[in-house]
């Protein structure tokens, strides 16, 4: 049989914007860059921008469209990331989604006791270990900002804690330019040399410009450090509609695209071809509490729209899902986690961070991460959709079973049930009596037990002793330097 132009499996997806709307947003963003410009003081950057043809007056940089377009041209349209041990891990391109952890919270919901306290380096290690055990978490960030070490040296403590507890790729904020350099030195030690790290990067950096349209020196510095080494980076300004960006989602997306393009220009002018996302965050400034929510529907909507514009340039994108504003692992946490994970998966955002946040980004929680892992499994199954072909249409099976029969014993069932049906690992699907007999535990209790079980039994593939010792030495040396 021949069946030309027949698509067997069209996965489920959505689009927020029409092609016309994408064009309007792009045009508006170019206009903002050309007529409004960005605030930037960094000497080296100003020099590069002037040479490229930007209009620089005082600390305001205005970019003609042709400069931006040239930088879009030189930026890689896909980024391949390896794991700690040098194995191919993520192809960041197109509409492929990979979910990762939350980061940088001052507090942690203790992975062992469930109590909430200030984040310690030990918590970062435990968070990474739990992430290592979860099949739907593809990459990690340090889950929290350590409060039990000198703040400037926290970078290097956290890198050490993460790399000793997971082989998964990581995204690193970096608290200072020198801190980032030291982290890269440690990463090179793990990779077996700087050249090897550049060839097979297992970490990405995450400099965060400030909305609206401000690029602080140290952020530019961190961008240049990554660009010089070809380490991929994800610029992450945060649009808060009505506060740090226009109240409208359309206006926020325009500004986010402008900020993202400015970041891209800085990276490309510094090192043409250096990998860089066209990325942003969208947080919702609550107009009654003045707090920034991490799980509002507008976040997913704004990020999906921003990503569609970035996708039209062919550039990698950044999401924020699996977070909750709730203070406990309750129904609110479940709704917010699952909703954002599905919405952003449907939008095809590439790296989706913040699975594990609670309390509006103030708490990282291994429990939330485990719940997110389950929701991602569900979303993956939904988005994967199903094949339509002779085998799956099952006409011969229906014929064979006939009216009143059953399919339980068919080879067709046996051969395909594992692939057709997603199996939850934590959701209650047994009868009421069986559930009651198993201790009548709700989802939060089952998750708590699972986290403890992972910590007690999960084995992380260890780094060689030599590397572990070298990292500790680098961290010690780095701490002395950073504290002076």
């Amino acid at each position, binding site marked *: 049989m021949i069946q030309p132009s027949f698509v067997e499996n069209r996965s489920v997806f959505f689009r927020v914007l029409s092609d016309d709307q994408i064009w309007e947003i792009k045009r508006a963003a170019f206009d903002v860059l050309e007529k409004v410009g960005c605030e930037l003081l960094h000497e080296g950057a100003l020099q590069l921008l002037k040479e490229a043809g930007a209009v620089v007056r005082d600390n305001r940089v205005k970019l003609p469209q042709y400069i931006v377009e040239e930088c879009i041209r030189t930026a890689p349209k896909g980024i391949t990331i390896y794991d700690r041990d040098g194995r191919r891990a993520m192809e960041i391109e197109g509409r492929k989604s990979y979910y990762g952890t939350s980061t940088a919270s001052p507090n942690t919901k203790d992975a062992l006791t469930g109590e909430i306290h200030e984040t310690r380096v030990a918590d970062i290690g435990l968070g990474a270990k739990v992430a290592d055990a979860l099949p739907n978490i593809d990459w990690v960030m340090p889950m929290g900002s350590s409060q039990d070490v000198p703040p400037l040296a926290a970078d290097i403590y956290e890198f050490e804690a993460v790399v000793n507890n997971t082989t998964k790729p990581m995204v690193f904020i970096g608290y200072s330019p020198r801190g980032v350099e030291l982290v890269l030195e440690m990463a090179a030690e793990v990779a077996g040399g700087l050249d090897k790290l550049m060839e097979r990067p297992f970490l990405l950096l995450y400099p965060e410009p400030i909305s609206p349209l401000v690029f602080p020196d140290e952020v530019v510095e961190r961008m240049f450090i990554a660009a010089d080494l070809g380490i991929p980076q994800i610029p992450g300004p945060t649009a808060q509609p009505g506060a740090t960006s226009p109240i409208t989602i359309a206006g926020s997306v325009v500004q986010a695209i402008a900020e993202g393009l400015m970041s891209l220009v800085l990276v490309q002018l510094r090192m043409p071809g250096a990998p860089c996302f066209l990325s942003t965050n969208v947080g919702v400034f609550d107009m009654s509490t003045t707090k920034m929510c991490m799980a509002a529907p507008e976040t997913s909507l704004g990020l999906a729209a921003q990503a569609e514009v970035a996708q039209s340039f062919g550039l990698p994108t950044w999401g924020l899902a699996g977070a909750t504003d709730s203070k406990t692992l309750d129904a609110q946490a479940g709704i917010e986690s699952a909703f954002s994970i599905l919405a952003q998966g449907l939008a095809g955002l590439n790296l989706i961070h913040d699975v594990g946040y609670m309390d509006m980004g103030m708490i990282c929680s291994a429990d939330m991460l485990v719940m997110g892992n389950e929701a991602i499994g569900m979303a993956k199954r939904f988005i994967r959709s199903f094949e339509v072909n002779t085998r799956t249409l099952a006409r011969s099976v229906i014929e064979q079973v006939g009216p*009143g029969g*059953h399919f*339980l*014993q068919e080879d067709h*069932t*046996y051969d395909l*049930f*594992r692939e057709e049906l997603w199996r939850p690992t934590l959701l209650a699907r047994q*009868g009421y*009596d*069986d559930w009651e007999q198993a201790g009548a535990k709700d989802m939060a209790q089952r998750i708590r037990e699972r986290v403890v079980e992972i910590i007690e039994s999960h084995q992380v593939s260890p780094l060689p002793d030599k590397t572990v010792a070298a990292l500790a030495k680098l961290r010690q040396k780095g701490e002395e330097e950073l504290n002076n």
Partner: protein
Amino acid sequence: MSDVLSSISTAVIEGNADGSAKFTQEALDGGMEASEILDKGLMPGMDHVGVEFKAGNMFVPEVLRSARAMQAGMDLIKPLLAESGASMTGKVLLGTVKGDLHDIGKNLVGMMCEGAGFEVKDLGKNVEPEAFVNEVKEYKPDVLGMSALLTTTMRAMEHTIKALEEAGLRDQVKIMIGGAPVTQSFADQIGADAYASNAASAAEMAKKFVGKA
């Protein structure tokens, strides 16, 4: 355990009906007793499947394939068991009660019971109390299993039990019931001997009734 017995167990676990039949025949040709093949080859294989199913490592389609492999071996030894007077695990009579046409759960119970080594007779769906009574009289099952999906039809279980009492047969058979709306308290209320919430526990319950669990 002899090689051939462990090959039989493995074939059952893997759901390999051809293998199960082949190794059972081999064991018979080698002069082994049918009861030994059942107790030390087929049943241990199926017991292992039951454990794995309970642990969430095996799933219904796989368990049923193993049950089919078990049946392939059983078909060869059944006549010999009957001849020697050795018993099978026991006999189970099944049916969906009067007024109810839902039978997927009841069918699954049947297959699970066969997998546990029972001889199963299935009366189908919409079974009148009198039909159950006649069959208890004729077939002499150790266990009667009744199923209903609807709250409107589950009362027919009670009527069937009454009919058995009136016919003086109630004490000759253990009665277990199941189906989505059925509960332990309903079972207690109508005088059933047991309630099973799923097919695997129904088969386990049946084994308990005949002293094989």
